[in-house]
């Protein structure tokens, strides 16, 4: 087997050194009736070339080269080539959690830079090293709000990504944490009056998404005022990180939970992505996950270490802020490199291009069907109501035009009828927008 660096002579030598006659003796602790004495029924050993061919065939079955006008929590942005060039270095991807800082300064410094950039983007004061993704990050943020406030219920905006809400529901169920949902109005934003009425003295937090699942940017400041007036925290989930290049950051929030996939992470059928939690300094001891801090070595040189570990499972066990151990470090590194590539100006210009593409798409689609939620600003997504069923449109576009169309909303928002949320990014060509617009009705 090509991954195993040993000859039979070496194996025999090692057995002799151990003082046993056969490898079977080392498996003796497994009771005989449980020892597998047959081959596993898995495919036979394959050559590298056969493996590549097999996956190429799967990739071909999937179809590639489609234009994507779909977002809904996973965004098709350009990935600068330096990202893969750098993360393909074994020093990055074959290391693990930087438990030994003297030989992990690369990883540690990179995380420290990442934490800094996330703070800059979100308007928060501290950010962690990463969470699994935006949905679990949002669920952990809600639990963090419970710990901070000592209250135990939460309010979710109905305009939060439906799958994020499902994940939060799974996490909340066994924490004895009742969740209530607050509706949106006809501009696609959270219904402020309903929100105000829903908050009780037991509400730990209000969780909104902005831009929300419809692409609409929420009035974060107004929502923060309403939540704070009743002693609840505001958690803002950002699923489209690139929006922060041009949209006011949710600085009034107490916790921001970000899905950073937009920053150079492949769509990869939904993962691996990278979640992040950012918050105020005063809440840092309740943040889940790893944190990197600056310190010095014995000679006074600057260096970085994992810190405030007394929040974490390996020290606090059942009293930890979360059970998270392995996170999404390499994906966070991709996003880190991406933020360096675009930088202060590029992130803004790129976001501006997205805005322009989506505005153009809205206009083109608007001549064929009804664009909903016109009363509030949007970033790169919008909802289109059609007379035809949204799934039909999506199937036809895929088959006929090699276009991946909008996300049909019927399953989660039946009240919107035949509607779908569409997305245009810098990678969406005018031709694809025109072709898709030509098909909707």
């Amino acid at each position, binding site marked *: 087997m090509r991954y195993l660096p040993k000859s039979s002579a070496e194996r025999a030598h090692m057995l002799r050194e151990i003082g046993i006659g056969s490898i079977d003796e080392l498996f003796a602790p497994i009771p005989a009736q449980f020892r597998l004495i047959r081959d*596993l029924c898995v495919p036979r050993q394959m050559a590298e070339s056969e493996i590549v061919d097999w996956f190429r065939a799967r990739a071909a079955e999937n179809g590639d080269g489609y234009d994507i006008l779909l977002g809904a929590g996973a965004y098709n942005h350009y990935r600068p080539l330096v990202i893969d060039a750098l993360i393909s270095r074994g020093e*990055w*991807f074959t290391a693990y959690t930087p438990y030994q800082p003297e030989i992990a300064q690369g990883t540690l410094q990179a995380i420290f*830079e990442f934490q800094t950039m996330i703070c800059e983007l979100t308007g928060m004061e501290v950010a962690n090293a990463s969470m699994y993704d935006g949905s679990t990050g949002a669920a952990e943020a809600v639990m963090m709000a419970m710990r901070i406030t000592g209250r135990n219920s939460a309010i979710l905006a109905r305009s939060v990504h439906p*799958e994020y809400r499902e*994940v939060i529901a799974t*996490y909340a169920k066994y924490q004895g944490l009742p969740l209530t949902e607050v509706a949106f109005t006809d501009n696609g934003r959270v219904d402020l009056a309903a929100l105000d009425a829903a908050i009780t003295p037991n509400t730990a937090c209000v969780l909104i998404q902005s831009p929300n699942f419809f692409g609409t940017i929420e009035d974060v400041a107004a929502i923060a005022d309403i939540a704070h007036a009743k002693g609840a925290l505001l958690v803002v989930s950002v699923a489209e990180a690139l929006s922060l290049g041009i949209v*006011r950051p949710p600085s009034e929030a107490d916790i921001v939970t970000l899905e950073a996939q937009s920053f150079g992470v492949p769509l990869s*059928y939904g993962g691996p992505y990278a979640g992040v939690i950012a918050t105020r300094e005063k809440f840092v001891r309740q943040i889940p996950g790893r944190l990197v801090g600056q310190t010095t070595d014995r000679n006074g040189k600057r260096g970085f270490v994992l810190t405030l570990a007394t929040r974490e499972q*390996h020290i606090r066990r059942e009293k930890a802020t979360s059970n998270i151990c392995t996170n999404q470090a390499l994906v966070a590194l991709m996003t880190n490199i991406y933020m360096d590539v675009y930088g202060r100006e590029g992130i803004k210009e790129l976001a501006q291009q997205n805005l322009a593409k989506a505005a153009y798409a809205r206009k083109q689609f608007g001549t064929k069907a009804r664009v909903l939620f016109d009363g509030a600003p949007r970033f790169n997504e919008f909802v289109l109501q059609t007379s035809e069923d949204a799934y039909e449109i999506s199937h036809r576009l895929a088959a006929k035009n090699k276009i991946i169309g909008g996300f049909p909303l019927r399953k989660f928002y039946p009240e919107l009828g035949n509607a779908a949320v569409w997305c245009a990014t810098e990678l969406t060509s005018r031709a694809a927008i025109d072709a898709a617009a030509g098909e909707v009705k």
Partner: protein
Amino acid sequence: MSNENIRKVTTHISQNEGLIFEHSSPGKKAYRLAELDVPEIDASAELGAALRTESAALPEVSEPEIIRHFTRLSTWNYAVDHGMYPLGSCTMKYNPRVNEVVSRLDGLAGAHPYQPEQISQGVLRIMKALADQLIEITGMDAITLQPAAGAHGELTGILLMRAFLESQGNARKKILIPDSAHGTNPATAAMAGYEVENLRSNEDGMVDLAALEAQMNEDVAGLMLTNPNTLGIFDEQIAQIAEILHRKGGLLYMDGANMNALVAKARPGDFGVDMMHLNLHKTFSTPHGGGGPGSGPVACTKHLEPFLPKPVVVETDEGTLRLDYDRPQSIGRVRAFYGNFGMLIRALAYIMANGPDGLRQTTEDAVLNANYLRKKLEGTFDLPYSTPTMHEVVFSDKLQSKSGLKTGDIAKRLIDYGFHPYTVSFPMVVHGALMIEPTESEPLEELDLFVDAMKSIAQEAIDSPDLIKNAPHSTRLSRLDETAAARKPVLRWKLESK
């Protein structure tokens, strides 16, 4: 510093490098946007009050600076590609390059999670193939690939336990967890709304059956057991353990972090396990990435299948695959979309590269390597449990503590010898633990160098303990002040701190 015994490494030049922000200067760029093919728009008219007025202070740097920055930083890391990384419980094995290539194929890496199923047959086929093979490897009946890491798998598994028991009428209150367990186990139980009750180990390092009998009652939902456990010991009483739990209506959760000792040699489904997670980033060679991403599929028996997270991949009568969301008893979702799909590709590629014979040889070599180290280092280091061990071995610092040295000190000195340290101070049942897991990926030469290094350090502990206390001596930075970092946390860069 005495270096004559260090054969594995030679120090060499390592580039200094500041923070990326310290290279920033207005106007530098590493990008050029493509020409915009639609009309420009006025962002402030479009966004109104939602317009960002103050830019995020991201660095402004050029492409070559980015390449140098991250290349220089990378050279400060130790990685599996450099040499043995015997971090116990983490299974730091070789990460095959073909995995990286196939996971980046355009049709896979570019697949949108909501693209229509008609153009997702390839990705669904990959998920189905991996699911089938992991079911065969574990001997369980069903599986979910949704969890993003081991701990996330634990949560999923305990929620399955809870949902199942609830369907029987009583979710119960407590989870039993052995004192040797990983911290994620109790943390998980708490997240699933259970109290944690500690279960003590016997003098062989296994579950104390009498204690289990005494503690098992109708309040106990189940037991979270790592097998082989964190001492590397396969608990031979596993079937009795399962029996005791099942007799009183409880379930057995197996933490599969140590499956590298079992693949193709024994199947948890055959010895009474009800549900378990796998760490694809340990056993199935997906890279650790400096801390992640991982992937933590959860396999379970038939009676737990209805509760698995949704959606699940199912095959239609026509042989096409689709995602089934209609699972009324499901615990719900534990993550958006379907899991860390890119890691699933890599794990499948690993299984294909091995086949049944390769998987068996892999496990045998992993156990052989660990036992070779155990044999060579026994006597030089204290072995607190004489019970046979499988894929890892845990020593203690008892002998060296006579010179005032702790496991953490020995670990730091090992760095000078060119190795990544073992896992320090875990499991907690061993005072001053040195937890060593070489994996199958180490050639004999590397193992022998490791043995020499450990023996040499043991000698230094007698001759010159200060050498060890002040180690490492050959790294860019000497020991870092972790206390200061926690006392006054500096968690981000600011212009003033330049």
